[in-house]
């Protein structure tokens, strides 16, 4: 099983990338290439949501890809959020402590609530400014 990718811009500052299949040393290049195209299209300070519901397997190569995404998003003042990691993926994440816990969400509702909260903070921050 190979890697499958779907991206969907729900807003100019938010893109949801659905990653499926297997992310390993063989396939991580596909994700890296796709993100190289996607990320510049996102507004500065935007949010990438990586939906891992379909990802069965990840290896250290995949982890490095995720790290790269988060690094470039951070450089653009944006956020990277991970959604629905499956057991194997979660296990690998746990072992290497790949991402802060508060950036991983187990359901869409949880994610939406988080995004709303973040939106409010930004709005309030703007008004404060």
């Amino acid at each position, binding site marked *: 099983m190979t890697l499958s990718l779907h991206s969907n811009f729900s807003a100019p500052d938010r893109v949801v990338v659905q990653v499926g299949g297997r992310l*390993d040393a*063989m396939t991580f290049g596909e994700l890296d290439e796709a993100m190289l195209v996607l990320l510049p299209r996102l507004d500065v300070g935007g949010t990438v949501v990586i939906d891992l519901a379909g990802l*069965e397997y990840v290896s250290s190569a995949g*982890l490095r890809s995720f790290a790269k995404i988060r690094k470039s998003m951070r450089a653009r003042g944006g956020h990277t959020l991970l959604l629905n990691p499956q057991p*194997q993926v979660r296990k690998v994440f746990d*072992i290497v402590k790949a991402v802060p816990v508060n950036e991983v969400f187990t359901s869409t509702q949880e994610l939406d609530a988080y995004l709303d909260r973040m939106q409010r903070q930004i709005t309030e921050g703007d008004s404060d400014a």
Partner: protein
Amino acid sequence: MVLRSIASRMALWVLAGSTLVLAAIGVLLLSLTRAQILQHTHREAAALAASAGSEIQARIDRVAISAQMLATIIATRQDSAEPLLRDTLQANHDIDGLAAVFRPSSSPVDAPPYSPFVNRVDNGALASRDLSSDARPYWNSNWFLGGLSCSAGCWQRPFLSLSRQRQLINYSVAINREGRPVGIINADVTLDWLHQILGHLDKPEGAYAFVLDSDGDYLAHDNPALVGKRGAPALLEVLASDQAESVRLPVAQNAQVHGAVWVYSAPIEGTRWRLGLVVPEAQIYAGVRRIFLWSLLLGMLALLGVALIILLTIRRTMAPLGMLADRAEHVARGELDFELPSTSRHDEVGRLTQSFDQMRHELALHLQDLARVAREKQRLASELEIAHQIQIGLLPSEHYLDAVCAYFELHAALRPARAVGGDLYSYFMLDPEHFFVMVGDVSDKGIPAALFMAQTITLAKALAPRAQTPRNLLQLLNLELCRGNDSCMFVTLLCGLLDTKSGNLVLASAGHEPPILCGHGAPQLLDFTTGAVLGLYEDSDYPEHHQRLRQGETLLMYTDGITEASDHHQQMYGIERTLGSLAQVPPAAPTAGYIERLLGDVDRFVADAAQADDITLLALTWHGAAQVDVEVCVASQLADVFAGLDRCEHLLQEADVISSLRSDVRLVLEELLVNTVEYGYPDGRSGQIRVVLHPGPETVTVELIDDGIAFDPLQSACPNLPGDLADREQIGGLGIHLARTVTSAMRYTRNAHSNHLLLRFIYPNQDGSSS
């Protein structure tokens, strides 16, 4: 109970002994005294009899003389016969009557001559009558005719005078005139005086006297009933001689006397009478017997007294002995704490008491010593038992079956000659593919050997992972054992490494007995070159011998306890018998069959001779490859790696390995393989990577063998994990970390040209992920 004491027994024996001696002496004395008394009595009685005889004789002589004088006188004065008779009668009271009778004249016409007879009447007056006027003429009577022939006088037979109612006896003497008897003087003598004389004799008490006449009739007797009776024949026979006699008659004639009697007799001169004095024998000895009885009684009383004194004295003397006997019973019961009688005396009892006291103390000390020695012995035995347990604990189980794929089976037996021994065997899996096995024999026996054996077996196990090959192991072991081996102990060791996949066996020996290969054809001795024994020479080398085990073959390793087992005749079992015994085992026999067969044969050979040396046997049977391992070969290309990973996953899926474990295996393999492909061949050459999968029911074992540069993933540093990978400058080392964390166990070895990584995954793997 009383007789149990020495005192009473001794008193009794003294009493009995003394009584015996006393009785013997008494009897001797009695017999001597009896003889003397008898002699004395003889003399006395003989004298008495003689004097009585004399007295009687004197009286008789008077009668006889009177009669003879009368005869002489009357011969010439026939006419005055009567007055003469009267005078004589008056003078001699012993004479009861006197008669002077004359022979009538030859012419019948002449009147018979006056023949007066004077006698005493009852009132003492004298009466006289003429006998010639009696109706019966006297001249024809016997007494007259007999008297005529007695010119010297003779005593007639006694007779009972009917007229006077008395026992009388006649003394007749012839009256001679002119040489011819013309008549006779006849004196009637009463026998009363005779009785009086006998009665007045000073006889001993119980004795009686008698007078026998010439015919053997009793003239007089103290028992009047016997007067006139005839004397007993035995008596008469003895009295036939004229001498004074003493004779013993068993039975007295006198009914008044019982028992034996002594008869003393004396002849009475002038007559043919005999006087007899009869003394009962009992009477003779009565006095001495009484004295003897009294003496005996007094003697017995004295002895009783002596016995009593002995009893008391011995009792008193032996009293401490009794107490000692009592204390000795205490000693027998093991009670040594008691009072002893005071030992102020210096005799044997005192010394005995002192010795007893000393013995008691010595015994107490000895018992303490004994108890201490026994405790010591018990402690040693218990320590030895513990040592035995520990030594047994050092040995692995006697049966080992390759649990993964049952390719090989091992049976071992170790039988120490003593509680602990110097033989050893050991085996262990060096890695999933390699099985180490060894059999050894320490020089010497007992505890030193056991310690050396423990050292050897422990060192061997510790050094094996480093050594990897039998040759290396023996070298390393030798160096370790040489160190500080001042006692110059050594061990022979046969060491084998079995490749559990192929049955390839590498053997190396340090001076040990060659192993035997059984199973196909005759048992074969694998006699390869061995190195020196371990522990003596540091620079020893141990050549390896390679042997491929075929299916069903059994390798038998043993110690010299088998070949040098000796029977009663000091004959050794030897290698020939060993091979012969093993040849008896059927080819398809179980592994244990070889051990049982050989041990049984050795036991039969040795019979009941003592086991001299430890015996160890180890049989290793190769059952052959029953199933080919799942092996995936990967070229050193990334694409190949993933194709291989897919194949592996597929194989694991076929082996029903659960998916979570499958993805764990895949993750680890990917990380390691990618790592190897990327870094293992820096020189650009193409490599070969082998992945061998052993899916088991509880574990999945994976071997990773590559011919790249040496790399031990276990040695790589743990990456810094701050909690966010995006924070890290260098994103490296994650893969190895993942692989190490997810694998349950990982072992790395580097062979000559290849890295060998052994991975083990254990169900369930959920716990492993967090560690």
